C-alpha cells in the first residue's frame, strides 16, 4: 500500500514536471506566459504543425473526434486520461481549445469563436 502511494506521488510529480517543461518549450525565451501570447490564435493546420509533438497528437485527435472528453482522446492516443487532460488544458490556456461541462463530464472542442 505504501509502495502504491509512493508510486502515485512520483507519477503526480512527473506530470507536474511535464507540464512545466511543456510551458518552457512553448514559451521559448519569451517573458510572457503562453496564454497571454497565443490567446487569440486559431488552431489551423499550420499552427497544428508548429505545436510540440504531444500537443499536436492531442489536437489532431480532437479535430477528428471532437467534441470529446479527455477519456475519449486517451482511448485513441493510448495515453493516460490524466495526461490527455493535462494536454487539453494546456491547449485551452493557449486559446486553441474550449471546454464545457455536461453533467459530470467535461468536453473539449476546437475553439471556433470568431476572433
Amino acid at each position, binding site marked *: 500500500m505504501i509502495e502504491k502511494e509512493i508510486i502515485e506521488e512520483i507519477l503526480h510529480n512527473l506530470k507536474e514536471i511535464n507540464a512545466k517543461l511543456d510551458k518552457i518549450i512553448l514559451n521559448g525565451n519569451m517573458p510572457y506566459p503562453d496564454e497571454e501570447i497565443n490567446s487569440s490564435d*486559431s*488552431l489551423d*493546420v*499550420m499552427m497544428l504543425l508548429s505545436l510540440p509533438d504531444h500537443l499536436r*497528437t492531442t489536437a*489532431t485527435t480532437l479535430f477528428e473526434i471532437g467534441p470529446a472528453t479527455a477519456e475519449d482522446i486517451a482511448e485513441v492516443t493510448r495515453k493516460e486520461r490524466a495526461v490527455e487532460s493535462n494536454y487539453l488544458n494546456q491547449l485551452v490556456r493557449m486559446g486553441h481549445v474550449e471546454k464545457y461541462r455536461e453533467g459530470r463530464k467535461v468536453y473539449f472542442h*476546437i475553439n471556433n469563436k*470568431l476572433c
Partner: protein
Amino acid sequence: MALTIAVHSAKGGTGKTSIAVNLAIAYALDGRKVCLLDMDLRGPTLRTFFDDGSSEVPFWVNDLLSGKKGINEVVMDTGVDLGMAGKVSVAYSKADIFEIRELASKDRKWQSNALKNIITGKKELIRNGTEVIILDTGPGVEYESINAVAACDLVLIVHSSTKACSECTEQLVNGVYKSLNKKCAIVDNMHHCSLDDDTLDGMRYGFPVIAAIPCICDIAKRSGEILVLSDREHEFSRAICDIKDKLGRIL
C-alpha cells in the same frame, strides 16, 4: 473499413489529378463506392476529366470549406458509365479567378473551420456508405492541400524524377506528413530509372515506393482520358491497379 487517401506532391505537374481520377475509377471497377473531391482549389482541373465545363454544378467544394453547404449538397454524379460496377461521385472546385483570389485572402480562422468542415464531410460520406474517399490536392504547402493531408488516412505522394521534386518532397515528409503522423506511400511518376537512385529496398524517406510509372509520351498525349476505363491494358492503367492493390496491403 472506409479509407481516405490524399493524393499530394511537393511540386506541380507530377500527375496527381490523373492518378487520383484513375485510382478512383479503379476502385469503383472493383465494386467500391468512391467519392473524389477536388481539393486543388487554387488550380482546379478535376472537372476536365468528366465534362467540358458546360454541365450544371449546383455547389462546389468551396461551399463545403466555407461551411455554406454540407457534403451531400456538393457531391454529384460523375456521369461515368461503370456498368454493374461500383459508383464514383465527385465534388468540383470552382475554376473562377475571382473565387481563387478570394480564397487567397482567407485567414487562419477560416482555414481552421475549413479543416473541421472537411472532417465532418468525410464522416458524413462514410456514414452514407462511401468506402473510398480520394482527395486530389494542389502541390506544396497550400492550406487546402495540408488540410486534406490532415483529414486523410494515407498520403499518396506523387513524385517526379527531378532534383527539385526530391528536395521539396523530403521537406514535406519531415515537416508535414511525419509531423501529422500520416501513413504514406510514394509513386514515382514520369519515372527515369537513372534519376531516382535514393530508393533503398523499395523505401524512400522511410515510406514504401509502391510504383514507378515510366515517362511515356503516350500518357501525356492522352491527358484528359481516363485510361483505366478506356484502355485497361495500358501500362499506366496496370500501374494504377497495382497501386490500388498495394494500398490495400499497407492499410
